[in-house]
């Protein structure tokens, strides 16, 4: 299990990346998909997911469409053109972050800490 503390800053990136790969998704589907890909290590709480989705929508990065599914309404989200750009930027930023974190936590032998 990955702690919520660590997930906090990456939730937007996760949602945007998933939407880029899957064209359109609804909230429950996103939580299921994250669980599937991470093999159960990441469980998105809906309490974090829905506020994030609405925030992204208010920023114009994603748009929503509602459909009647059987007896209830299902709200699908997809990326806007602006969202696609942001999605790529965020993913790149995160890869950079991971690289730097790896260096920080396990400094490779190539880096000299001696500035003299």
């Amino acid at each position: 299990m990955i702690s919520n503390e660590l997930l906090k800053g990456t939730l937007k990136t996760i949602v945007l990346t998933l939407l880029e790969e899957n064209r359109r998704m609804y909230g429950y589907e996103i939580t299921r998909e994250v669980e599937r890909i991470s093999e159960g290590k990441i469980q998105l709480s809906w309490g974090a997911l829905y506020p994030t989705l609405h925030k992204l929508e208010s920023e114009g990065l994603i748009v929503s469409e509602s459909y009647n599914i059987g007896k209830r309404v299902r709200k699908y989200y997809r990326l806007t053109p602006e969202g696609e750009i942001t999605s790529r930027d965020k993913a790149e930023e995160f890869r950079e972050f991971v690289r730097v974190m790896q260096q920080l936590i396990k400094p490779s032998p190539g880096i000299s800490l001696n500035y003299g």
Partner: protein
Amino acid sequence: MVELDEQQIGSISVDIDGQGLTYTGLKDELLDHICCQVELAMEKGMTFNEAYQHVKIVMGRKRIRQIQDETLYLISKKYRRMKRTMFALGVLAPILILAGLTFKVMHWPGAGILNTAALFITGMIFLPLFVMVRIRDTRNMGEPIPMTLYISGMVPAMITILGAICKLQHWPGAGIMLTIGLSGLALVFLPVFAITKIREGKKMDEEVNKKLILGGVLAGILVILGSLFKIMHWPGAGIVLLVSWSLVAVILLPLLVLNVLKKSENQLNNFLLIILTAVTVSILVLVYVRSASREAIVSLYFPENNLNYNAMYLDRQTAYDWDDLMASGNTEKINKCEVLVKEADEIKEYIFSVKDRLISFYEDESNPWPYESAYRDLLQSHNLANDYEPLRIIAKEDEYRLYHLLVSYRDHALLLTTNPELEKYIKRSLVLMTWKRETSPEAWAEFYFQGPTMKTVTILSMYLSSVKLIEHEILTETESR
């Protein structure tokens, strides 16, 4: 694959509503989410009730309200900043206006800037922010947005305030903007307001005080039109203002206060009401303060109202005029004074007409420079090459008519009196001399009328007073002989 039926979905929906979910954008998807989870649990063999209980435990009972709060918090950062700014400006603007008024009354510098800033803040920032906040609030509550009402109120109000700024700063275009803005407020916004309110009340099945709304709107229209007439110096302003303010003070205000006290839940509207009242009162006071300087000119314009002049008559108790002499039936005396009286009347008429032209010239906004007022006027007076209004009228336009009238009057008056004191007064008061020398009309006009307008108006009034005083003295003398 299990799918929930309508009744099951309905029971979950009622449950969610019971937990205080009001933000409509969120409800559908939370319902869908819970349904999906319940379906998943049911596929593993649970009954609906078991599955729903299980899901509720997993999710925690309080979560729905928290999700809503968090969502609203995240998507409304800008809105909250906007609202805070709006409240701050709403408080700041009346304070600035009152400060400006204080400065104005105390004749400290900077009053104009303060008032302009206050008006700018009220009209160009506070008002649009208020409308945006209102639109946002209405939308969040899922009610229809009365766009016509907002636009028809905001646009004329902004134009009016721009006009007021121009008026204060003596920039061109104030008249046309005030006319358009105030007419818009009175004839478009207020009727739309009344219709919207009454229709809204009918729809919500609320008891709307129709009389209050109609009376208020009618009074509002009259007040605004009256103010417009007053500002533009159109005839009929007085009566319209009198009727409308009486309506407001005697009937509307008590009704309104009662109504507001009855339902105090709508804080935002009450806040606007207080701010608007404060601004209105401030502006009214401002208008009166501004008109004070104009009254100074008006009192010169009607020298009969001049206290000194009246006091002189009252004091001596010998007011005597042409009508009294005519009534006496003494033909010899009447003939003797007839020319003098006619000439006095002519001078009086003439001086009134010059003042009239001067005042209308200074009232006319199409004249670019007089609005820079006395200061500019004073500067102009030191530049003799410059043409300017009093001299232009008296010397050029009327070809020194006043000079010739006064000379003729003086000569007649001197013939009619035998009183050496009066003779001296006539010679001295109808001063046609500069530096104690009799000079040409050109020099006379330049000496007396090439000054600030206030000075020349005063001189005109002094001539008029002297002429009337001399007329009175001579009539009295003739009668007593």
